[in-house]
């Protein structure tokens, strides 16, 4: 009976989703298998037969029937590679979050992060992609034009009336095919959930979190995203967010903030007198690996957001991204060196991420020196944000997701109104509007879902489970059974 209470809801939900995904499509799918995919496959065969099997038989070469435009191929190739780079960010998040939390919760964190990617991709195919980029389908579902457009939902990704041929070539978009578009955007989508995952780590109930994550990635993120990237009302207003300082990062940060408040701090985090204990993560090596991988993936996150392989723009974006990250890292390291007399690696790493988040909204708008300034300020901001959240606001965020993604996401979005080609009071206003609107929606959504979960399944594991670790409580597993763990530490002194 116990697992029913714990497990049935997420399972039911996911099974339902799978069902929804297939049922309306099975009939259409039959056509597709012989139609849509069949067409694709004919092309495949033409190319593949010519190319695959006979590398040693030059005489067999036949060029693909219709020569595809080289520029289109390059653009498409870059966006696909960018999508892969964004994918590797999920490994970055997984190692970062694992490293910054305790060994006894490792299995739980890895499970959450693996599942978020899987669920994110599946639900984005099922509903998110079409919800975020509307414009087709039943206009009667265009409930509040520009604000809430459900018209694309009924059509699953490949089963609408659109001719696949047009989706696969430059007629769909000068930059990439429909599949490439989905691939790149789906990898983005899961990112915002992962941000929440880190903030709620070490005490959230697995089943509740997975339900929240599924709803967040399939509904909330696409709706706010569509306001700008789906050419919605914020886009019309003039709001600018190049690669998602707000659409991805501050949105994820807001959700993280609300969930953290609903959840409460980890056991032993705050003392009776209100003072705060540090609860160090179990491997700064893993954390550093995560930050390097995130930086690496960010080349695709920002560079791919050019949505073409335009040499000037993409290379500019790579340079501004790198300089902002570097400036953020150095700034946070120096601030911690000054403020605490010794340089703090965890802060330097956060500073790099802060710089990356900060430049994301305007990576294509900034000159070199501006990217350094934006990144540097983000690095300083993140230092004080971590301390403010931790000690003043008593927000217990084990990995600093709110400081990095929320605070620096807002900063980066506003910076587009301060620096770069778009700088100006009006633009600053648009940016503020975008931050506020998306923030408000996300906070409201998260509050509703979070409170509903709290009232039903519960959000928080028991205190016993927290002490024992979520790996045992939620998974009956241990991540590192061969190493002797040590429980004799300092902060136990204060846990009393």
């Amino acid at each position, binding site marked *: 009976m116990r697992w029913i209470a714990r497990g049935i809801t997420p399972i039911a939900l996911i099974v339902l989703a799978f069902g929804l995904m297939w049922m309306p499509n099975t009939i259409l799918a039959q056509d597709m298998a012989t139609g849509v995919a069949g067409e694709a496959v004919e092309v495949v065969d033409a190319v593949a037969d010519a190319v695959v099997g006979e590398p040693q038989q030059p005489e067999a070469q036949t060029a693909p029937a219709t020569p595809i435009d080289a520029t289109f191929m390059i653009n498409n190739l870059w966006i696909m590679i960018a999508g892969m780079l964004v994918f590797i960010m999920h490994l970055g998040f997984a190692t970062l979050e694992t490293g910054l939390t305790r060994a006894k919760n490792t299995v739980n964190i890895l499970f959450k992060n693996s599942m978020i990617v899987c669920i994110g991709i599946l639900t984005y195919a099922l509903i998110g992609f079409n919800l975020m980029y509307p414009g087709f389908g039943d206009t009667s579902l265009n409930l509040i034009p520009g604000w809430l457009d459900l018209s694309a939902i009924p059509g699953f990704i490949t089963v609408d009336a659109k001719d696949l041929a047009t989706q696969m070539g430059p007629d769909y978009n000068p930059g990439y095919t429909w599949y490439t578009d989905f691939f790149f955007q789906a990898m983005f989508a899961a990112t915002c959930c992962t941000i929440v995952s880190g903030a709620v780590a070490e005490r959230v109930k697995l089943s509740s979190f997975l339900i929240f994550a599924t709803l967040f990635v399939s509904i909330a993120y696409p709706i706010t995203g569509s306001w700008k990237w789906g050419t919605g009302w914020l886009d019309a207003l003039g709001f600018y967010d190049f690669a998602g300082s707000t659409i991805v990062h501050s949105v994820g940060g807001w959700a993280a903030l609300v969930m953290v408040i609903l959840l409460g701090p980890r056991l032993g985090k705050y003392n009776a007198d209100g003072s705060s204990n540090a609860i160090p993560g179990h491997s700064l090596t893993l954390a550093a690996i995560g930050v390097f991988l995130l930086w690496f993936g960010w080349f695709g996150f920002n560079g791919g957001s050019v949505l073409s392989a335009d040499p000037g723009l993409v290379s500019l974006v790579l340079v501004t991204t790198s300089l902002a990250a570097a400036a953020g890292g150095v700034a946070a390291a120096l601030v911690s060196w000054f403020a605490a007399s010794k340089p703090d690696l965890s802060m330097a790493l956060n500073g790099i991420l802060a710089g990356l988040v900060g430049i994301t909204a305007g990576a294509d708008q900034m000159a070199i020196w501006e990217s350094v300034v934006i990144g540097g300020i983000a690095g300083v901001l993140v230092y004080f944000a971590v301390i403010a959240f931790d000690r003043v606001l008593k927000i217990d965020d084990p990995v600093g997701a709110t400081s990095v993604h929320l605070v620096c996401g807002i900063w980066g979005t506003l910076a587009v109104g301060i620096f770069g080609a778009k700088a100006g009071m009006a633009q600053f206003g648009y940016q503020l509007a975008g931050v506020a609107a998306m923030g408000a929606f996300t906070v409201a959504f998260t509050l509703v879902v979070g409170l509903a979960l709290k009232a039903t399944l519960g959000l928080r594991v028991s205190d016993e489970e927290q002490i024992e670790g979520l790996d*045992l409580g939620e998974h009956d597993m241990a991540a590192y*059974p061969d190493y002797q763990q*040590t*429980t*004799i530490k300092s902060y136990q002194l204060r*846990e*009393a």
Partner: protein
Amino acid sequence: MHMIEAVIKPAALGSLKKRLAELGILGMTALECKGYGKQRGHTERYRGARMDVGFVPKILLKIAVKSDDLDKTIEAITEAACTGKVGDGKLFVYELSRVIRVRTGEKDNDAL
């Protein structure tokens, strides 16, 4: 002089240390250990298989005290470590024939 060996739950270490400090006992040595007793271990899973883990992580605390302090120390430990749940642990006490402080060469009660 007596040595008290206390097998306790890891979570009790903080309060215990505080309590002993109040008594003026400022020396102790702690070791990671795994206990087996009435508190049953848990079941773990791995790739579809179950396994019973009999041993539970504990802390073994060694506290050498002057014989005069023995009773009150035992009392303090028992109180601080007790949650009333199985697995709270045990105290083992034995007599020490000598204590020496390495740094100064002080002996016995002077070394405590």
